[in-house]
């Protein structure tokens, strides 16, 4: 079964005002997003494509676990002098990305990408765009008082997400998809965790001490669920494909950490994409985990990677060995290994070997190894214990995107972080979407006909026309050939009407 490669990352950033304790988080996030604008905010995002109650298992839930909390927030928001759309401040940027205020967190959703190189560049472009917005906001506030964190926890039991998304053929049976990917996801933190000091429980505070692989493992409460804010699942079942529903699913993964290392981002997305390719080829793992939720937490809590978890069929297996099993099977299952897949498999094997033999080789490449090395050095230098609250602050600061303060930024300054993107790639990604995906088309619409856009979202763009709205349907522009045809029409047209007419003639 051939599959179209298309993936993206949504990152909710933490935001702090350091000059006041009474800042309104809704206003701060809203103002931060708007600070990126050159002009006034006009709401154009079309929410009609969003179906958070639809479940991939074939039903629709009547309510989500977060609905009550959302209702409470809505009640509070009603007292603010802003409309719903003003508070969301939903922007589509000229690179096809979405940038908006989601639950008081500025969220950057990368354009849909087809290659690992592109997704890494666009994830980094997101950091830069957020940093530009913070600088502009700070100019208004008169000091460097707004700080942004690309992490997933506030160390008080509140988590926020970094979701990775993949277009998957609907022809893949959902049960097979779950069975095929679940052990991989439980153990993915071994190669993709961002690392965290201490332990947390959902909205029940923080216990200092120790170090674990993942920021999010403490917040995973079930195997499958449509929920995202409470009762968080290892595999989210929301059925919101943002593509033709009969042909595609969107795998919406909410268990991942926000990564700072480009190499970790490349491996996280790359290995997940490889596992989806394997499942499309009919791969079924030789084992199931007896208790995936307990396993994800047990694996996270052992940075020495010795912990084993129970298999349903009997026996035990470590997180590292689960990863090794997958990469070995990938070599056997995949029949068409292109250059990018070759790179992913090679680096995946290398990382597994180095984690086993000499993890320090991965400083600057794998986030949790890098953070642990930094903190361990600090513990030794300062003569403090792992339960010292200073370490949570250092953990937080690892994710600060301020280049003069962030600890990961410091590693980059010292030349200790492995780059996947060149600086030019990131600069280009800040301005333009990928040439070979519909995101590039979306971005081009914003660049060329921004003033004419009536509404916009993942699946299409509506333009204001003299006789009603004109619709550019992006549902069908998933293949590179189709994207190229549409791009040519977009670039040649002087008006949206000319573009729509040109595409109609091509059909």
């Amino acid at each position, binding site marked *: 079964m051939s599959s179209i490669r298309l993936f993206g990352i949504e990152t909710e950033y933490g935001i702090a005002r350091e000059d006041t304790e009474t800042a309104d988080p809704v206003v701060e996030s809203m103002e931060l997003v708007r600070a990126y604008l050159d002009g006034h905010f006009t709401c154009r995002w079309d929410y009609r494509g969003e179906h958070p109650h639809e479940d991939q298992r074939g039903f629709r839930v009547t309510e989500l676990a977060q609905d009550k*909390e959302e209702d409470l927030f809505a009640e509070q928001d009603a007292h603010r002098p802003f409309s719903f759309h003003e508070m969301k401040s939903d922007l589509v940027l000229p690179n096809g990305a979405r940038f908006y205020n989601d639950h008081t967190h500025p969220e950057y959703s990368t354009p849909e990408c087809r290659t690992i*190189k592109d997704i890494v560049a666009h994830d980094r472009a997101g950091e830069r765009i957020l940093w530009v917005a913070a600088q502009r906001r700070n100019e208004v506030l008169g000091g460097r008082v707004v700080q942004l964190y690309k992490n997933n926890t*506030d160390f008080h039991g509140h988590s926020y*997400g970094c979701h990775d998304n993949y277009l998957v053929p609907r022809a893949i049976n959902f049960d097979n998809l779950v069975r095929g990917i679940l052990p991989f996801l439980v153990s993915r933190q071994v190669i993709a965790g961002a690392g965290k000091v201490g332990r947390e429980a959902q909205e029940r505070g923080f216990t200092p001490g120790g170090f674990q692989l993942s920021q999010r493992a403490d917040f995973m409460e079930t195997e499958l669920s449509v929920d995202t804010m409470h009762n968080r699942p290892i595999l989210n079942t929301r059925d919101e494909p943002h593509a033709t529903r009969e042909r595609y699913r969107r795998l919406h993964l909410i268990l991942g950490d926000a990564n700072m290392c480009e190499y970790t981002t490349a491996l996280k997305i790359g290995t997940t994409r490889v596992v989806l390719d394997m499942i499309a080829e009919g791969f079924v793992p030789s084992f199931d985990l007896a208790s995936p939720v307990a396993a994800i937490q047990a694996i996270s809590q052992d940075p020495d990677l010795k912990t084993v978890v129970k298999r349903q069929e009997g026996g035990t297996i470590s997180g590292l060995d689960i990863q090794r099993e997958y990469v070995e099977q990938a070599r056997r299952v995949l029949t068409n290994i292109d250059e990018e897949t070759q790179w992913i498999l090679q680096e995946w094997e290398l990382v597994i*070997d180095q984690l086993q033999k000499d993890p320090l080789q991965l400083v600057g490449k794998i986030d949790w190894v890098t953070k642990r090395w930094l903190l361990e*050095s600090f513990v030794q230098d300062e003569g403090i214990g792992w339960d010292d609250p200073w370490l949570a602050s250092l953990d937080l600061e690892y994710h600060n995107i301020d280049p003069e303060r962030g600890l990961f930024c*410091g590693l980059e300054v010292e030349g200790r972080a492995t780059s996947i993107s060149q600086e030019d790639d990131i600069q280009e990604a800040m301005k333009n979407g990928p040439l070979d995906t519909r995101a590039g088309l979306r971005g081009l619409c914003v660049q060329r006909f921004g003033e004419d856009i009536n509404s916009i979202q993942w699946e299409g763009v509506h333009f204001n026309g003299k006789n009603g709205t004109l619709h550019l349907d992006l549902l069908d522009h998933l293949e590179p050939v189709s994207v190229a045809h549409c791009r040519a029409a977009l670039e040649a047209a002087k008006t949206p009407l000319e573009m729509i007419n040109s595409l109609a003639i091509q059909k």
Partner: protein
Amino acid sequence: MEHAMKFVQLIGSLDRKERPVDPISKPSGPGEDSGPKRPETDSPSRDNLMKRMKKVDPKQAEKYRQRTGE
């Protein structure tokens, strides 16, 4: 905006010293030029990182509060 963009370009050109790894066009043999060597325990760069870490307010995480997100 112009000031902000210039700053972004500046930090980009200063910061990214590590040689890029290209996941598409230049697959290398395992371990070849694919990452930093084992970190040295004593070096000027380590000292700079330690200085940066010591500047962090020990109570920063205690003060940091967010709402639950997705």
